[in-house]
């Protein structure tokens, strides 16, 4: 497959296997993928198809057996554990299905967590936390503990935590899997807004076609390979799915102004 020179994220011939007892299971098989900056991509597929493994590789949480993964000029497969941790702190935000907030901490303290490993002062951290909670509409609830918040509010806190370091990429693993439809739509609209207005590149694993409809592009993964996309989302109806939806050529809407840096933005 030809390389997309404009690709922000690029995977080439990526293989990943896991050992289960005596059996070696290949989860990803010679996978190629290009994603441009500012795209909102939904990754769909049946359970065990390899979509979460793909997300983990993209976030530097796991390493490929073979192949290369480049993100924003960083070749992840060549980076050490500490370098990957630093890279995650600066460039990636994670949003999980079960929110994964720390129960003993307030919303503000949860959001602040990624900044503790930086050299940022307490005052600056507090300003950033305040701004991030405003973005997700929860500034009034900054003192609430997770068990004092609804599921949707907890997921918005998790999104604020993912945003706090002003990352290039948001990786979302079933972010609406535990939410009712109305709340899920609110969270998806928030992600869509972050993509549209702030230019965040978002990759979202989901089982839910209605959630996928919020993305610009949908890729289907099955048996460790990327299959053709059967349809495009409602927000990118004009675009045509590719026979092998491994490469996306649709740049962000030029009418959307490119977002300024994070602190100024929020």
């Amino acid at each position, binding site marked *: 497959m030809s390389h997309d020179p404009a690709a922000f994220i690029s995977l080439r011939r990526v293989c990943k296997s896991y050992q289960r007892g005596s059996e070696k299971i290949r989860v990803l098989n010679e996978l190629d993928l290009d994603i441009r900056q500012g795209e909102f991509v939904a990754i769909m597929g049946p359970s065990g198809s390899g979509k979460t493994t793909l997300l983990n590789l993209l976030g530097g949480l796991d390493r490929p057996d073979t192949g290369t993964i480049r993100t924003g000029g960083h070749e992840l497969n060549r980076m050490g554990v500490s370098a990957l941790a630093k890279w*995650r702190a600066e460039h990636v935000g994670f949003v999980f299905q079960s929110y994964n907030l*720390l129960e003993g901490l307030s919303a503000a303290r949860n959001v602040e967590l990624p900044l503790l490993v930086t050299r940022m002062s307490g005052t600056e951290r507090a300003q950033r936390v305040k701004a991030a909670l405003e973005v997700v509409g929860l500034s009034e609830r900054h003192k609430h503990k997770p068990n004092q918040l609804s599921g949707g509010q907890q997921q918005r806190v998790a999104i604020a935590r993912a945003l706090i370091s002003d990352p290039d990429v948001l990786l979302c693993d079933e972010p609406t899997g535990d939410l009712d439809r109305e709340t899920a739509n609110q969270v998806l609209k928030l992600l869509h807004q972050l993509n549209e207005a702030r230019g965040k590149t978002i990759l979202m694993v989901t089982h839910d076609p209605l959630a996928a409809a919020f993305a610009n592009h949908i890729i289907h993964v099955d048996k460790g390979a990327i299959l053709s996309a059967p349809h495009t989302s409602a927000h990118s109806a004009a675009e045509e799915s590719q026979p092998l939806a491994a490469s996306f050529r649709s740049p962000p809407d030029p009418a959307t102004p490119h977002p300024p840096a994070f602190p100024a933005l929020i």
Partner: protein
Amino acid sequence: MRYWSLVWGSVMSRKWAYLATFAALVLCFILSSYMLAFSRAMSRGVQLSGTQRLVVWHKTSIIELLPLSYVDEVAKLDDVVAVTHRSFFGGYYRDPGNQLPMWVVDPGSFMRYYPEYSFGTPAQAADFLAGGEAIAVGRAAADALGWKQGDRVPVHSVIWTKKDDSDVWMFRVAAIVDSKDPSANTRQVFIPYGAFNEARAFGKNGVGYIEVMARSDAASPALAKRIDAHFESSAKPTHTSTLSGFLQSFASQIGEISSLVYSAMAIVVVTVLMMLVGQLAHGFSLRRKEFGVLKTIGYDNLTISGLIVGESVALSFFAALIGLIVAGFSINASGPMVAKYLSGFYQTPSDMAVVALLALAMGLLASALPVLQARSILSALR
């Protein structure tokens, strides 16, 4: 300190579990402190059993008096370093139930024989040394009786009457006796021999028993035999026993009991410690997901390991601190009372250091497995 809110938040989210573990840790460290003090006291008892201090009394019975002249004779024997004597006064203050050990002693030789005791200021010590009505009162005895330096106190004796048939002896508290050795028994009263000997109605120039300091432990058995041999053909033959013959068998019994009790306590402490280590480690295991989340947002292995080890060691150290303070107060408070039966029962800086090392080892041990578990992000997130 920037991670304080994170650590404190984690602790507070499981506060009851933490509190239970913390309380158990504190109790465990108190028990450890007691075990160390007990162990030293017991080993010290065994050491004392081999001491060079000998006691000479009447061969027939300890209530029979020995002649005062024996003291000088014993002092002239080879391998004798110091000699003093004492007699039981059998005294009580006001209430017959208010009895304390009161001894009639020769102040000069007694002070040389027991250099671990201090007798107040030089003037007060000289006052006691001068004899007469001046008595020296142990600190614990003074506290118990409510006496202070300068008080004049009437003391009854259940044994000794004066020539006028009175059993009331008037004394003046010349000095309060203290000791640098916290295990020393200061619940005693010391009465000068001279005036007492002149005033008593009977038993003049007699002493209860003679205390002899041998040159060395090794010299004790032979000296004891020599003393008894020296007085064998006299009107009042002696029996020198104490801490060689009699106490050798006592020592071995004490040694066995000590070893048994110490082993039982050690097993209990180690078992409890291992359970607590397991409990702490389990607590961290329950937080694997938390560590996984922290790693996804950029915390590296070193930071996570530091948080786990820091929290574990801090918890353990804090519990050890409280345990040491509580144990210190209770051991040192009960020390004087226990000292009557078990000398050396007190807390030392080395005991504290041992408990601190124990706390460090526990903290490290409890965090070792969680640190290894936290290295795998994906398993933590599952």
